[in-house]
């Protein structure tokens, strides 16, 4: 079922675009050029952060931290292996990508922890970055209840990620 979603979506987007007389090919290549910029822009932060994540893991500190947080996380139904991702997610997008990809690599993308990490990455955002950008644009210093509400949303996203992966992939 899910194997159908993406190809069908792509195909219908292409047919719809043609019916609107959009030059599908040049739209794709122009967009891909943008993607090249995004990938290249991602690289410096990823190099710095992934070297940090690798060091943490090699020292054994990351495993110790995961072990420390596991009882609390398992109580909420979240796999302890994703602790590093949860901690960095609200602060840094590239850091979360580094931590998440490391979880997927270490445990396998189709493992429970790997799938949870992927869903967590896909269903949450870099909370503090977004808050800084939007409140900065508004020139507002008092963020009132935005931070607690946004962090509640993140926590619910993490719990739901673990729950839905258990439900769909048992």
């Amino acid at each position: 079922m899910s194997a159908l979603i993406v190809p069908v979506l792509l195909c219908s987007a292409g047919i719809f675009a043609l019916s609107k007389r959009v030059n599908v090919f040049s739209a794709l290549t122009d967009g891909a050029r943008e993607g090249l910029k995004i990938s290249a822009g991602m690289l410096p932060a990823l190099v710095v952060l992934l070297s940090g994540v690798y060091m943490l893991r090699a020292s054994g500190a990351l495993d110790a931290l995961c072990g420390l947080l596991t009882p609390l996380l398992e109580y909420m139904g979240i796999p302890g292996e994703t602790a590093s991702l949860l901690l960095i997610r609200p602060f840094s997008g590239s850091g979360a990508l580094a931590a998440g990809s490391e979880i997927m690599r270490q445990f396998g993308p189709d493992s429970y922890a790997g799938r949870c990490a992927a869903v967590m990455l896909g269903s949450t955002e870099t909370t503090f970055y977004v808050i800084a950008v939007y409140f900065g644009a508004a020139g507002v210093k008092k963020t009132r209840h935005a931070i607690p509400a946004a962090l509640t949303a993140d926590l619910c996203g993490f719990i739901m990620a673990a729950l839905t992966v258990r439900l769909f992939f048992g």
Partner: protein
Amino acid sequence: MLMAYIWVGMLAVSVLYGCWAGTVPAVSAALMEGAAAAVELCLSICGAVCLWTGVMELMRRSGLADGLSRLLAPLLRIIFPRSFADPDCAQALSSNFSANLLGLGNAATPAGIQAVKHMTRLGGQCAGNELCRLVVMNTASVQLLPATVAAVRAACGASDAFDILPCVWISSLVSVSAGLLTARMLERGNP
């Protein structure tokens, strides 16, 4: 500056813990390994990321983003009653959310900032309830196709990179609802 503290903190913890646990040689090797792995990761997801930004651009040019904006308008009118009374603000809000849904990050942020500026023009300097709602909705990403994550999964050898889609959709919806609900409960007593 926050990231500077996080990174130096990561390093300091690794070195100290490494000395204590006797894993210093592994730590020193990991530094180089991590840097190399970052380049590998970037290269292996680059193709998929380019393809998806291409598809996003195609959706934008064929007017799918505008169509989505119109579809979303009734829902957004309920969440942002005051801001939606202003046509410019309503327009910015709609394009912010349709761009977010399609994963057009480059289009979502300018539209969102536009919406924020209209909101402050409409309602003074303090972070109004609707501004907080806008921020909460943007911090809880609701995305139809999480392309980068799927690219990473594919690079790691997943059997079907997109098989997590239903999980992502449900988790996003629940998390954004929980965020809005929390905001709603905390805003009592304030204008």
